[in-house]
């Protein structure tokens, strides 16, 4: 067992780096970031398109540029890194076991741990798409790595299933590299991606987006030869007679991201069935004291700027915890998501311990026009903000003021819901 660190951060992507920098800036001098890949920056390294940093830096950067700015700050001192190192276990008493080629198996004790492991892409198998299992079926992120890091094209004639952001980005990327993208099929009647990506990646290149459509069959035994796409009804069931064959050699999937929490489970951390990330309180602490979470491991984000913000908060809180100055929780008020809102992060708030202003992030379950996001304190409406459009692909946020909560004695529940505007 090594002597240990005040804070150990699992994952050196955007969340881990932002958390490390914020923790150091908050006065923590003993920080270790453990990263499984050979370099810092995580998935940003393969996101060579622009659109990152508009909020954080007020300018448009590529993924590697955004990552590099954080890496430079992190490398400025006070933070240790272990690269090419895979964490294999976290114990509830905060001993992290990791393996690497250079260090072998190491056990490191930490006063606080920040989970920043990110997420993985949902694979084809989880969709039960019938047909063969040939080469040429890739998750969009795998294809992105092949094209942008390895420098190789996974296909010529492409169909994309799912309109998540990586799928949209890859529609443009494959087109720019000379492939032909026949269409993007989306099961839902709305896109799962950002509006700006639909415009910039599909519309600008004349790539059709087929809403309420899905792949019902994959043809080709060795390599994909065609996919059959059908329209679906209101319950997502394919409508017989609407099948169209798209000859292609490649099917890219962008059908959802899943927070990677297998390690969290090993520490006994409670997960939300909705976000599939840890349940956290106002300081982004999980159900295990001293273990915090931020970024896509907590809930899937669409903008890295928000990952950085959230992770910085986790970093500051973990630093306070490690120094022993984070107040104990005096009680947790649950946040309940209702009527069109799928979840909130955090899921509980201690009014006494919360900062003066706390950002609560959430997603809606459908596309809504002209609705209001309402916040109720024990049945009393405290906020009612009109929104012209809300979509599942765009994360939303509401700010809660400490003063409001403190001024509501014996607060039992905070409800988030959509209402008529």
């Amino acid at each position, binding site marked *: 067992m090594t002597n240990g660190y005040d804070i150990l951060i699992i994952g050196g992507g955007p969340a881990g780096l932002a958390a490390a920098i914020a923790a150091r800036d908050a006065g923590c001098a003993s920080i270790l970031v453990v990263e499984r890949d050979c370099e810092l920056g995580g998935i940003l390294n393969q996101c060579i398109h622009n659109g990152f940093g508009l909020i954080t830096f007020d300018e448009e950067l590529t993924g590697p540029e955004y990552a590099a700015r954080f890496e430079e700050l992190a490398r400025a001192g006070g933070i240790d890194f272990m690269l090419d190192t895979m964490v294999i276990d976290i114990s509830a008493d905060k001993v992290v076991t990791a393996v690497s080629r250079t260090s072998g198996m190491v056990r490191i004790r930490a006063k606080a741990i920040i989970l920043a492991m990110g997420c993985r892409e949902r694979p084809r198998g989880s969709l*039960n798409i019938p047909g063969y299992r040939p*080469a040429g079926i890739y998750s969009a992120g795998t294809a992105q790595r092949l094209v942008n890091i390895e*420098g190789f094209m996974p296909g010529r004639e492409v169909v994309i299933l799912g309109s998540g952001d990586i799928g949209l980005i890859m529609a443009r990327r494959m087109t720019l*590299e*000379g*492939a032909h993208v026949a269409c993007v099929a989306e099961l839902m009647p709305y896109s799962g991606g950002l509006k700006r990506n639909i415009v910039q990646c599909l519309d600008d290149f004349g790539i059709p987006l087929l809403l309420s459509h899905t792949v019902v069959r994959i043809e080709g*035994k060795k390599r994909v030869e065609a996919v059959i796409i059908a329209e679906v009804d209101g319950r997502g069931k394919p409508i017989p007679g609407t099948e169209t064959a798209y000859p292609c050699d490649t099917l890219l999937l962008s059908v959802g991201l899943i927070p990677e929490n297998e390690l969290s489970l090993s520490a006994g951390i409670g997960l939300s069935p909705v976000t599939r990330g840890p349940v956290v309180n106002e300081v982004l602490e999980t159900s295990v004291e001293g273990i915090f979470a931020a970024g896509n491991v907590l809930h899937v984000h669409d903008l890295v700027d928000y990952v950085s913000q959230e992770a910085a908060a986790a970093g500051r809180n973990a630093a306070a915890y490690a120094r022993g100055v984070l107040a104990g929780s005096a009680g947790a008020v649950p946040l309940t998501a209702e009527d069109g809102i799928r979840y909130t992060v955090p899921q509980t708030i201690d009014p006494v311990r919360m900062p003066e202003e706390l950002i609560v992030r959430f997603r809606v379950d459908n596309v809504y026009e002209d609705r209001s996001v309402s916040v109720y304190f024990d049945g009393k409406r405290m906020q009612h903000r009109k929104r012209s459009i809300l979509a599942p692909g765009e994360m939303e946020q509401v700010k809660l003021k400490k003063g409001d909560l403190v001024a509501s004695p014996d607060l039992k529940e905070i409800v988030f819901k959509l209402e008529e505007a």
Partner: protein
Amino acid sequence: MDAFDVVIIGAGVSGAACARELSKRKLRIGVLEREEDVCCGTSKANSAIVHAGFDAEPGTLMAELDVRGVELMGGLCADLDVDLDNIGSLVVCTAEEDLPKLEELLARGRKNGVEPLTIIYGDELRALEPNIADGARAALWAPSACIVNPFQLTWALAENARVNGVEFFFNTEVIGIAQDDGLWTISTTRGGFAARAVVNAAGVYADALHNMVSADTLEIIPRRGQYLVLDTAAGRHVSHTVFQLPTKYGKGVLVTPTTAGNLLVGPTAEDIADKEATDTTAAGLAEVLAKSVLSVKDIPFHETITSFSGLRAHRKEHDFLIGELPDAPGFVDCAAIESPGLTAAPAIGEMVAGIVDGILGPEMRGDFVPARRGIPAVEWACDEDWEALIAEDAAYGHVVCRCRKVTEAQIVAAIRSPLGARSLDGIKRRTEACMGRCQAGFCTSKIMDILDRELADLAYAEITKAGPGSELLVGRDKELGGGGLL
């Protein structure tokens, strides 16, 4: 033309078992395989069960070789370092009126010599298997049933045969067989082979080969079985292999843990015409879902990570067909090996070798190597064992497949071993890399890097998923032309 004493056609589990058994003799043996690797047909896509032996009709070859296979399997898996778990099986009866059929099955099992075998009821059944469906009345409990890793078993048999001198020819499809002056000549897509004896272990294509040499024709009907595979998070949902007693609504599906810690649910049973149709269908997958809940409740299907189909080599007589053809001396069928073919494989090898002994009368060798070591899997190792592996080879510290915790050392071993992997699927079957919940999303390019580095004759862009025609890439960036949109 290369001349052999014995040519075995097919490198599935039957062919591999025959090859290993025959390699104990002083014979020159060749194995011809259409695919790029061993274990590419039925052997890779089945229930992976070592059946206790109560199912087969007494007096059939199936019954005999099933029971003999069970006897041999434990020692064989120990010798060859193959994962075998003795978890026992339950045949669940869900309808009162079917209880006599359960009794029949018990009687049949006893006649086949399966011991121990008992029927358990209600509370006892639920205590043994808490997630059994509420409608379950009773079950036939066969503690001797096991699950086995079919990829490892086939590969280990073949590798051990290779170490003992058997020569393997992959991507080699047989297109003709003829006998001339007591010698068989086999034409393939990669030239001709001559042999004094031929073993036909060609799976669903065994009939095509059989009919090349015999007037007494054989028909193999591919009987497709579709399965769902659930993540290891669901792997302990049941702790035994749970079969269903056939009902008036038809044959049921099984729910079982696998040796890799997943949960396997299936199969369907559809007689089809196309011997290449290893595809899944919407109807088939729906049937698996619907039937499985009859015997096991609350299966967490949201943990499904993949689905697949396998083709059983069925014939209407529903029995194995093993023997020298009367009208084609020296040609030995090892055909119609459907369930319990995996269980019977060691016994099939033994039987076929005995038949070849009768034809060629070979001497036994004194230097047969009976055992081999598999690739240590860190996923299941305790920390001390993993540390010891890292001390031996630092590459055991480099995790490449995060979901199944497969290290670079394991992948390199899979490539460098005799009959090493040359494709992504080859790596997958040998190491379980790519078999986890991300289904190769993260490790594809990393494994390609290792294949590229290890195999001097294979360029990066030529790396395949499963042999020629399944290339993963189409070229370098910018090579496709077109585009021009910037």
